[in-house]
């Protein structure tokens, strides 16, 4: 059990609401549990699901029991406990009477886990995705692009922002401040 902690819900036999749920967790419901867990949203970056963010690593369902593996973005990420609780609630609602959430640190989360869909959703929500994009100001350069107006005329205001994974930037084009997901 290297690098892992676990939290388990009580066995079905000890749960008052388990009656009837175990029957629902048949072979056909495995995909339903997977989909329900994958649809859990990050509590801080609400536009992304835990799957899109790269925090969800694995969902295994056997019989009426689900084992979900997640990984933290930062070791001290305060959202992890909320994610864990939301996953248990989602899997339970999808008919899985017993849910175990494991936390792994390997392979470590990096911003490379964000795919194109996730990056587009972040931009649409006013958060510049990680990395630099090519822009042409006086000369072609790699810059953080403003998620609101697309300008590359941007500057860092503060290296730490509203969550552990964001920094605060300002756009010289539209004058608006915006969050940038830090390269990590």
């Amino acid at each position, binding site marked *: 059990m*290297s*690098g892992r*902690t676990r939290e388990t819900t009580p066995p079905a036999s000890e749960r008052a609401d388990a009656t009837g749920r175990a029957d629902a967790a048949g072979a056909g419901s495995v995909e339903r549990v997977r989909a329900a867990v994958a649809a859990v949203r990050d509590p801080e970056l609400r536009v992304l699901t835990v799957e899109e963010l790269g925090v969800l690593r694995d969902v295994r369902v056997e019989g009426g029991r689900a084992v979900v593996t997640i990984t*933290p973005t*930062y*070791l*001290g*990420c*305060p959202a992890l406990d909320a994610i864990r609780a939301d996953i248990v609630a989602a899997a339970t609602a999808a008919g899985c009477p017993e849910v175990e959430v494991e936390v*792994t*640190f*390997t392979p*470590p989360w990096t911003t490379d886990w964000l795919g194109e869909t996730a990056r587009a959703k972040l931009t649409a929500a006013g958060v510049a995705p990680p990395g630099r994009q090519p822009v042409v100001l006086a000369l072609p350069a790699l810059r953080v692009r403003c998620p609101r107006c697309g300008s590359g005329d941007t500057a860092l*205001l*503060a*290296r*730490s*922002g*509203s969550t*552990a994974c964001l920094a*605060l930037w300002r756009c010289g084009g539209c004058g608006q401040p915006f969050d940038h997901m*830090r390269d*990590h």
Partner: protein
Amino acid sequence: MTPALFDQVLGLGDDALVAAQRMAEWCARAPELEEDVALANIALDLLGQARALLSYAGELEGLGRGEDELAFLREESEFTNVQLVELQNGDFARTVAKLLFFGVHQHLLYTELSAGESRLAAIAAKAAKETGYHAGHAEIWTLRLGDGTSESHRRMQEAVDHVWPYTHELAEVSGLGGPWLERVSGVLDAAGLRRPDDDWAPGGGRSGVHTEALGPLLAELQYLRRAHPGARW
């Protein structure tokens, strides 16, 4: 249990926990709002590292103690953190100096420890990135204050002089004094700050020897748990 591994993980966990608690004292007291957010985020990163390390230490020990028991129910002399992280915050420049020296050291150390497949390596790989960002933050402030006004320069130099003796223990713990000095000297030079002479070298934190600053810090950290055993949110 491997006693050497337990001691190593506990020491790293205590470094992170005490540094986190001290850093968190800036919350709502930093010189500007952005810095308040930055220091609180750094404290949060350190606390996350402490939790991962102390949980692991508890498992290695095998006596049923978890992260909470190790953090809240040990006496001062049982803490094995280096003395640098327990020093009082004082002037903001001192916090910058502590974070520069500690952040650079932890970044080097965790980078070295992150090689391999062990559980400590997995934690170190996460912590290396985080402490690298902390060191970068401290470097920016060291440059700004050291190369700023005569007053900011004076206070940054005083802070460097004050904290310097406690950096010897970092090198003693890790054997990374060479690369540490190279990187720190580069920052001090660029900031126009004088590297202090190596003289007094307090130490012994890993053996439970501490300055008078640790006791009050632990009193605040542990008070609630000791007053209300078993209390939950």
